């Protein structure tokens, strides 16, 4: 089956949101997706994009069928004070029925190539430890688990804590 990888465009936001929700469902956290198509449009295609996206598209069975978006990767550039630019892979997903065709590998190859061209030191991403198939997918390709190997832990301040921290001290 033929597929094509391309940069996402504003018209893709509805498919991007659909796939974001499919991935969240796979991770059993679908109810945590509060993002809207409007957010995706403003945040990805305004003057200062907060993310970039690659889309995987396939042609339907007959030439009169519409193209169908079956996979995506959402990424942005971040910065490590020790080594500089990094590519952060935020979401990466191929719809179940289209897995095993090499789309995921191709997306990763495309991102690695982009990371090299933009002189990024590496690609960073977060994986849930119970997501064995994804962990193996990445480790087979040379990824390191920094949490396990170097003791890095991911911490988070939620909105309430941010609001509290942003207020002047009452002490």
């Amino acid at each position, binding site marked *: 089956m033929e597929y094509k990888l391309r940069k996402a465009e504003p018209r893709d936001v509805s498919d991007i949101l659909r796939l974001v929700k499919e991935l969240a469902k796979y991770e059993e956290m679908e109810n945590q997706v509060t993002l809207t198509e409007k957010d995706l449009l403003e945040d990805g295609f305004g003057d200062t994009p907060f993310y970039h996206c690659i889309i995987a598209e396939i042609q339907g069975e007959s030439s009169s069928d519409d193209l169908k978006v079956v996979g995506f990767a959402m990424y942005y550039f971040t910065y490590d004070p020790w080594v500089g630019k990094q590519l952060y892979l935020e979401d990466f997903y191929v719809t179940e029925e289209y897995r095993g065709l090499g789309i995921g590998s191709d997306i990763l*190859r495309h991102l690695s190539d982009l990371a090299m061209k933009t002189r990024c030191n590496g690609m960073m991403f977060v994986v849930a430890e119970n997501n064995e198939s994804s962990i193996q997918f*990445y480790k087979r390709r040379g990824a390191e688990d920094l949490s396990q190997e170097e003791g890095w832990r991911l911490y988070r301040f939620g909105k309430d804590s941010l609001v509290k921290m942003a207020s002047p001290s009452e002490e």
Partner: protein
Amino acid sequence: MDFSIRAANVEDCKDIARMITELAEYEKVTDQVKITQRDLEQDGFSKNPFFHGIIAEVPEQHKSKEGDGKTPTRYSTRQMQVFGCETAVASDKKWLYLCFLGKGIGKALMSKVAQLGLAAGCHQLNFTVLDWNKSSVDFYLHQGCTDVTTDMGYHYMSCKGEAMEHLAQP
């Protein structure tokens, strides 16, 4: 103690580079620091910056006269990267000269980062900490953060160097 917090500018890159090295010494990973002052200038202060920084400064009269002879007039840096998707603000690495700990400067820097993040419409602040770095972990937990690695099993992974070059091959 008087101190002020402001946005970093290109002239701060020399101090930022110095503090990054010192933080790496504290984290016992100096051999991993490849970044130079020039990298910081190009990557942080050109048309499309890859990071933003805020600086905490003390006035001249509080300069340290002891220790290793360094006289810091500026002594803290926080890099903030703005993430998309969940519109999370992530920050990495914070350094306070040991002689200035306990003066509320760390809290003030965190407060500023939180203000900047909220103003930009962010809902979360994500960052990483080494598990043995107890004083930092305690500081952050005291401010109300959660350990996502423990709570949700999220592992921080990386693909770099030869592995990344190999992946990029057709």
